[in-house]
């Protein structure tokens, strides 16, 4: 049986060895992330059938669970690591051609380590280990946002770094308080003993940990860094940040709340916060002219929607939340990858300069349109069943509070549709006489009209996945149901770790 530790150990080893490969040949560095994530994807897919019923618990170092670090490869963990490996593989194929300048070898090392950190966060079962892998994720993303070396990139990276570092200090204070109260760092062990301490004393570590993790998960009001960071990074990194980093942050928040604390009276507040985030994100996105900033605000909105769905806290709600999460990952990565090449061809990020893209880059524009429609929730694409399930789940809960909130969610969806349709309209149906607009002075590369083949392959694989799962959503419901039941069923989790 393949051990899930290899999902973390092999990419880590390859990342350490990458400079050595670079000494041998300069060009081999960019193929190593492709190899690493292909390996991860194969192992995750092989492990999926095995974890549907019971989680695999691996202890590192051979000691028994509360006295060692353990990895819990359950349905949620393996689903997330398969998703991370898939998106990592596709974006690294895209980056084979997209990253042409700068210290390329360092880009690939940082990229590999960012996704290794993300895989570690979703697989771990120990709260300090969560902190360490979370820091790996965050610090690589600080360095990658600043990769292009331009003014906007450095400024966004500094602001992101300061906010992220304050967040992780809060997380560490929360972990210290938890250790002082319970005497152990294992998640299952803390979960078992959580009822022995009064709720008021446990409330403060919970708030500190959620604040710390919430900076990375982009929950309102902690998301001030996101629009700058996601719009100034290179497009392949924006795809990874919007697609993976904030989802993994949200996973960490959800894991802490559901499994460790089991705090059931906080869900209404979280649902309210989710809808607030959704409205702020969508309203700000509506007024944007810069396409990457618009997509970044849209990510904030979608995270709010996923948080709302997950805090419905019934099996229906959590399944729909996870489905929406997967749909957002695939659609947002597709949007950023398609937009990346369009920006590269026109040299500017303003929406009016994308006029006529429908004719100049037909395949890329088609992919962008598919991603946009899926995010809004139109029928043949994946966004439709996921949003439909969320509405059903919220109505099935039966309380007035949730019905009001779902009304606000639908209002947010309408606004989202409005701004995405505006972009699609600009791409395909351009008004005459405005084509002298030009860019904001960036470098335009009009050589060749369509994006290169290497960049189009991952884009179209994502399109195929979005259309395929949209037409046949029953493909995913098996694993989503067992993932949802793992999150909601904390006693099962404690039993499988501690025996």
């Amino acid at each position, binding site marked *: 049986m393949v*051990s899930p*530790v290899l999902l973390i*150990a092999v990419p*880590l*080893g390859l*990342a*350490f*060895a*990458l*400079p*050595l490969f670079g*000494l041998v040949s300069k060009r081999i560095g960019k193929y190593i992330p492709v190899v690493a994530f292909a390996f991860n994807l194969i192992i995750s897919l092989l492990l999926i059938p095995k974890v549907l019923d019971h989680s695999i618990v*691996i*202890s*590192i*170092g*051979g*000691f028994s669970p*509360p*006295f*060692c*670090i353990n990895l819990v490869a359950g349905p949620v963990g393996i689903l997330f690591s398969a998703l991370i490996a898939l998106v990592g593989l596709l974006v690294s194929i895209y980056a084979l051609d997209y990253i042409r300048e*700068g*210290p390329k070898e*360092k*880009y690939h*090392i*940082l990229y590999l*380590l960012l996704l*290794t*950190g993300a895989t*570690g966060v979703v697989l771990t079962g120990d709260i*300090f*280990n969560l902190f*360490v*892998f979370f*820091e*790996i994720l965050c*610090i690589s993303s*600080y*360095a990658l946002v*600043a*990769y292009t*070396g331009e003014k906007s990139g*450095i400024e966004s990276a500094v602001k992101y770094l300061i906010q992220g570092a304050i967040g992780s200090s809060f997380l560490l*204070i929360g972990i210290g*308080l938890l*250790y*002082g*109260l319970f*005497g*152990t*760092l294992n998640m299952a062990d803390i979960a078992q003993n959580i009822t022995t301490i*009064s709720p*008021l*004393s446990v*409330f*403060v*570590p919970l*708030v500190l940990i959620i604040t710390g993790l919430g900076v990375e998960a982009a929950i309102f009001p902690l998301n001030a860094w996101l629009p700058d960071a996601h719009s100034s990074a290179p497009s392949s990194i924006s795809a990874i940040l919007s697609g993976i980093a904030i989802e993994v942050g949200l996973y960490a928040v959800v894991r802490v709340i559901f499994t460790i604390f089991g705090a059931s009276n906080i869900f209404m507040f979280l649902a309210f916060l989710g809808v607030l985030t959704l409205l702020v994100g969508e309203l700000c996105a509506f007024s944007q002219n810069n396409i990457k900033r618009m997509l970044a605000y849209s990510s904030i909105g979608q995270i709010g929607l996923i948080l709302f769905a997950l805090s419905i806290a019934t099996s229906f709600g959590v399944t729909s939340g996870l489905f929406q999460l997967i749909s957002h990952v695939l659609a947002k990565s597709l949007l950023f990858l398609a937009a990346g090449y369009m920006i590269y061809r026109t040299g500017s990020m303003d929406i009016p300069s994308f006029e006529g893209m429908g004719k100049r880059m037909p395949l890329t524009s088609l992919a962008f349109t598919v991603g946009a429609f899926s995010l809004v929730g139109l029928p043949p694409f994946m966004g439709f069943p996921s949003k439909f399930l969320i509405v059903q789940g919220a109505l099935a809960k039966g309380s007035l509070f949730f019905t009001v909130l779902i009304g606000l969610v639908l209002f947010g969806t309408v606004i989202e549709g409005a701004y995405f349709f505006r972009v699609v309209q600009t791409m395909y149906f351009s008004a005459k006489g405005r084509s002298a607009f030009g860019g904001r002075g960036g470098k335009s590369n009009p050589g060749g009209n369509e994006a290169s083949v290497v960049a189009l392959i991952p884009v179209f694989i994502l399109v195929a996945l979005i259309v395929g799962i949209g037409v046949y959503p029953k493909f995913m419901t098996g694993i989503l149901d067992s993932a949802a039941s793992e999150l909601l069923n904390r006693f099962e989790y404690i039993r499988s770790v501690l025996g």
Partner: protein
Amino acid sequence: MRKIISIVLLGIVALGIILSLARIPFGVSKTKVGGYYIDKGREETGAANIVTSIVVNYRAFDTLGEITVLFIAAVGLGAVLSTRKKHKREQDLEPASLVLYTGCRFLFPLILLFGAYIFIHGHLTPGGGFQGGAIVASAYLLIYLGCRGRRIPEAGTKVIESLAGLVFVVVGLLGLSFGGYFLLNFLPKGTPNVLFSAGIIPIVYIAIGFKVGSELAGIIDNLMEESR
């Protein structure tokens, strides 16, 4: 205005933390995990320093994550600082006086030896890979500050850094293949308080010492080059 708002916010946070801290008495033993490590640590791992046995054996995965973080910082620093055009201004740095120059050259191998002593004896005395690595890097900093104009070869530090990191991961994978657990302590443990004891702990700590030393020296090199 900004100051008043921040003081109010911090006051609320402080109140919350004090409420929770009242439950954690100061100076009293409260953990079961710590007690287990102190009681069983010496026989299960063979190291006399319990903190080392936790860092390298019981919680070795955290240490792996930690050296990854340091690696990311070094690579990220190199990536951020590298895209600057190198101004070829060879400023005339004032050469160091003879006393300073000779003193630094004399102290350099002694400091390296001290650092190496600390990371080799990590399982017997307080100290270990990170502390020893930091001392080794400070020896290089002394050379940069004292004998100006000397540089350390960049390719050399990169090779040592990568090889040391690989040693750690390979030791872990060997544990996986021999015993079925990643980072299992599979070498014989020997008797405690002897230099060659405690299984893989000295090997891992020596690798960490080299890695941290060369990484910090690389960071110092990048920052010093920036200021020329």
